[in-house]
């Protein structure tokens, strides 16, 4: 099979997916882009609003709160989850007895459906009867009210999200397999310790994989934080866990202000793009010349 034919059959295999994505993601996204410049309540026809929705957002206190909360959430969960993913991938990279079981255990929380996962954590974090506080209390540690206390609620939601790291874990495992064993052997001969090996070999060679994981995590943290806050806190107490996706949902579907919701969506889209660009710069690109 020639290269061209191979590429063409790849494209064909991709087509059903592209069809679905266009129908269910791209087209609605473009439509909602247009909605951002209209007043639309879903009941009567949309009317042109110009920049009015965006101007309204500038003075919308809840939007301000939600943006700060979402940024905080990203700032907590992305580094925490990336570090944990990296650590677990290092720990379970080498074949050894039972490693398949460990890897499955790491991946398991990721396959739990979002709603079930949120409800499980709602129980774990129950301030009086939850297993976490019963455990903390039994060893004499303080028992925070978690989701009930405005000071800990956002952190608690982020904590719950940390364990859904299966996809990044698999990516980093694959990345680690790509590093030839000779590098480690040479480094051992040179008298390098484990830490030095991680710093001098693993980190540089894993950079593109790590960047991929971080970028993906950024998007996931902004976007799929919706289900947990909707089910665990409803955005409370007193907006402490009000994240942008929840506010968009409430604005559009509960208060029937689809234009304003679409405007927020557009701003989030641009904001995530900016965060991705910043992170990319921070990593210094993919780590090696892409032409190679």
């Amino acid at each position, binding site marked *: 099979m020639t290269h061209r034919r191979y590429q063409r059959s790849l494209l*064909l295999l991709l087509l059903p997916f592209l069809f679905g994505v266009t129908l269910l993601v791209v087209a609605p996204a473009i439509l909602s882009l247009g909605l951002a410049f209209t007043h639309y309540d879903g009941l009567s026809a949309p009317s042109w609003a110009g920049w009015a929705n965006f101007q309204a957002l500038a003075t919308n206190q809840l939007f301000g709160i939600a943006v700060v909360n979402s940024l905080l959430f990203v700032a907590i969960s992305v580094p925490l989850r990336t570090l944990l993913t990296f650590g677990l991938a290092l720990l379970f990279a080498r074949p050894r007895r039972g490693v398949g079981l460990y890897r499955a255990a790491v991946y398991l929380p990721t396959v739990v459906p979002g709603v079930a996962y949120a409800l499980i954590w709602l129980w774990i974090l129950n301030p009086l009867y939850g297993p976490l506080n019963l455990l903390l209390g039994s060893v004499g540690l303080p028992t925070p009210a978690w989701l009930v206390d405005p000071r800990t609620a956002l952190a608690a939601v982020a904590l719950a999200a940390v364990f859904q790291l299966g996809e990044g874990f698999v990516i980093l495992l694959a990345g680690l397999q790509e590093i030839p064993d000779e590098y480690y052997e040479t480094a051992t001969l040179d008298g390098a310790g484990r830490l030095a090996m991680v710093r001098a070999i693993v980190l540089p060679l894993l950079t593109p994989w790590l960047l991929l994981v971080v970028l993906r995590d950024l998007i996931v943290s902004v976007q799929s934080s919706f289900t947990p806050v909707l089910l665990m806190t409803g955005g409370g107490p*007193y907006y402490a866990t009000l994240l942008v996706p929840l506010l968009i949902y409430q604005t559009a579907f*509960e*208060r029937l202000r689809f234009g304003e919701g679409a405007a927020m969506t557009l701003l989030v889209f641009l904001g995530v793009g900016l965060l991705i660009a910043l992170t990319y710069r921070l990593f210094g690109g993919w780590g090696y010349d892409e032409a190679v």
Partner: protein
Amino acid sequence: MPRSAVYSRLTLLAAVIMLALAGCAGSNNATDGGPSPPGGAGNSLPADRPATAEPSGAISFMIFGDTAEKAAYEQLVAAFEERHPAIDVSLIHIPGQSDYRQRLGVDFAAGTPADVVLLNYRRYAAYAARGALEPLGPYLERSTLIDQADFYQESIQPFIWEGQLMCIPQNLSSLVVYYNRDLFRAAGLSDPSADWTWEEFLAAAQALTRDTDGDGATDQYGLGTEVSIFRAAPFIWQNGGELVDNPEAPTRLALDSPAAREALQWFVDLQVRHKVVPDAVAEAAEDSESRFLNGRLGMFLNSRRGVPTYRTIERFDWDVAPLPQGKQKAGILHADAYCMPAVSENKAAIWTFIEFANAAEGQHIIAASGRTVPSLRAVAESPTFLNPGQKPANSQVFLDVIPWIRTVPIMAGWAEIEELSAEELSRAYYGQASLDEVIRATQERAQPLFTP
């Protein structure tokens, strides 16, 4: 793989996808009450066609509520279909009330609301103001089965929007005090009297609040309530205050008046000062209603809605008492009504169902489940509702308080005002902010909603 084979497989796949999509769309129409397929008899029946022509076709009816409530509506539908075999009613049940509201908003936006929807009087205005509802006043006038004069006017009045009756109310509940009689006995309290006062109410709550195992933490609370302006409103009115400056044509909230502030302080003090209700942590760990159901909470404020669930209580005896009285008498209306979306097609069949549900037979069926205080006087005063053999024994309470029942303002933005004021009031109630700060913030944040 040969190219032609790939293409033919692809075509097959595309065909499958198209079929699946078409199937989705089709089943959506059938279950979600989109327009009935063309050709269904009765589709083109004009609403004002004489009642002699029996309407027919398929209609959908969307409800919310727990399983006991759902069972009652299923019975209603079954009875209706027996009487009107040509009309097929499919019931769409959404368990949670807030899920129901969101589904409704989305359905209306998509142009495919169910043919009959239940709407609360605090929320229908947002739809009525945008012309999304078919006014039902003219239908009611033509009806030979039901007559506006047979309804409690207190339930009809709130559904009149700009001079037109929009929906047919099924019930008119007040806020009452559900109380655990066993806990009252154990605390040496007698049943609340019909004219008990705020002071007696608080004293009872204090007597019922106990640390039963002596570990320093309260195990049994005297009282439980949702924290919202809707729950606090009757106390504001009883104290001579108002929710808004002018209930007929509101231009601002009036929670900052001394009378309203004093009532709110009393409400908030139940938690911050007297601690007779669960604090934020206790409420989050186990909500008040669940505590009541488990026999560890003395009194719970709720409308008639709770009855079907409370009838499953076997461990203790319970009953209802009227709200305690302040400086003047006031209660607060809870009412849901059958509404018809303006885009519905088979209006004759839809009206036939709404008419049946709100005639004596239909209201008897729903009332028997315990769910409603019937809006038809004759049904409300019948044994179906008052039956002393069924809990609550003192159902008469719901009827006694009707003369001084009041409503929240009927305005498009009210639901959102309730939402934000609940967030604000909770801060004061759980001691996270001062009441004055909360009132200031509520007044300020609600103001834009008075100018649509």
